[in-house]
């Protein structure tokens, strides 16, 4: 099942050839990419050193994972497929000296934006496994249900972060697969939830986040899927002193999420994976994107755009945001 019109199939083939040659020539020990998932409209990360596996590599509108999360874990040289936000996460890891640029071969993919299956389900009123097909073509998408195809504008089904994407073409790559795609964005739609929250009063916002975080079950999917969260032992796993109890109480959940977002400030590239991974449908991106915007607003710093720049929290300007200091 390919979810792309025929003209994009050759990019997939180029990717497979590229990955195969990397492994055959021994330029990398592992290749990280996407292969078809075990469920409809899903892909799953493929991490392999076996050159025959590369034939499963795919590119389609469902390659959602930020694969750079594996870079801090895999030893040796790695060939990695990177979308726009993924490549910025790689740059951010390079800035943090977690990864050495020479050890990575980046196969960049200009990303036209990915399809959010939750939005498709809300739009069509059916669960994803009840749909026949979803095919994207430029700024339209055709969703087939019970044999009936219906066309929708793509902006109705793209992820919020894709709608607000500033760098769809990878910033850093060794090979670029396919030409930069026409960027379909809608910044207001992308920040719509955040603006709604900013419009609320202080007490309303607090009650909003209190309700959201009372659903959190502390599965840590948001932290473990985030490439910017690469600590050996997270502060919530500290027992001496025990800052935060590993118990899913809303107070501890809230402190965990807020401090995590401060820790990844200047590293988060708004790839939207934290919100997608959350099984309890907590709008984590409304927190992550807000932190991303704050960092941009306060320090004119866009995470993962300059390999040489020192990380946000280890640098300073002589005169910058201090209106709040007495």
């Amino acid at each position, binding site marked *: 099942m390919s979810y792309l019109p025929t003209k994009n199939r050759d990019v997939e083939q180029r990717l497979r050839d590229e990955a195969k040659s990397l492994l055959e020539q021994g330029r990398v020990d592992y290749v990280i990419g996407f292969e078809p998932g075990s469920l409809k409209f899903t892909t799953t990360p493929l991490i392999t050193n076996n050159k025959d596996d590369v034939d499963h590599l795919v590119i389609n509108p469902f390659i959602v994972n930020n694969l750079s999360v594996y870079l801090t874990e895999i030893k040796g040289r790695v060939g990695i497929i990177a979308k726009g936000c993924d490549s910025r996460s790689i740059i951010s890891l390079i800035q943090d000296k977690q990864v050495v640029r020479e050890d990575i071969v980046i196969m960049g993919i200009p990303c036209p934006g990915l399809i959010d299956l939750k939005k498709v389900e809300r739009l069509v009123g059916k669960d994803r496994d009840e749909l026949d097909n979803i095919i994207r073509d430029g700024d339209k998408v055709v969703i087939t249900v019970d044999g009936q195809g219906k066309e929708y504008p793509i902006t109705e089904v793209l992820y919020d972060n894709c709608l607000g994407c500033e760098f769809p073409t990878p910033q850093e790559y060794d090979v670029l697969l396919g030409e930069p795609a026409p960027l379909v964005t809608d910044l207001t739609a992308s920040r719509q939830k955040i603006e709604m929250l900013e419009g609320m009063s202080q007490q309303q916002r607090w009650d909003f*986040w209190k309700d959201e975080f009372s659903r959190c079950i502390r599965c840590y999917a948001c932290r473990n899927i985030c490439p910017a969260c690469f600590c050996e032992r997270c502060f919530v796993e500290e027992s001496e002193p025990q800052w935060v109890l590993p118990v899913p109480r809303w107070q501890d959940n809230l402190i965990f999420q*807020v401090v995590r977002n401060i820790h990844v400030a200047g590293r988060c590239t708004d790839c939207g994976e934290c919100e997608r991974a959350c099984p309890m449908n907590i709008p984590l991106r409304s927190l992550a994107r807000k932190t991303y915007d704050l960092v941009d607003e*306060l320090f004119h710093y866009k995470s993962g755009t300059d390999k040489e720049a020192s990380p946000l929290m280890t640098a300073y300007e002589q005169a910058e945001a201090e209106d709040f200091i007495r």
Partner: protein
Amino acid sequence: MRQDSQWEPKIVGFLCRWCSYAGADLAGTSRKKYPANIRIIKVPCSGRVDPLFVLKALRLGFDGVLVSGCHPGECHYQTGNYYARRRIAITKKLLEYIGIEPQRIQASWVSASEGGKFAQVVTEVTRELKEIGPNELFADQK
């Protein structure tokens, strides 16, 4: 916001030992009058203050958190206060977005010679916290 008159805000102050802590000392030795609401924790530098300290303090029921360090350029470790400035800026803005009253997180530059300024900062912070009432953010258990 319930406000019985005798309620006094409890403030935790993270004071950098080189400047602000010395400033607080000076305020004491020069008999400067200032409210006794502040509990002082001496830190080696304002850059040592982790956002987790701020949230833990609010979680335990403090009404306000003050982080005070040396003026930019005077830091004993050259850059500690610059890092602190960035960290507190983001912490304060994000906590406002979450729904914590901005007055609960305060920051100030107080040098070792500014005993008066320290007294004035504590007075102002106490007054502001009195206006917005006690911290019941993390109150209910369920």
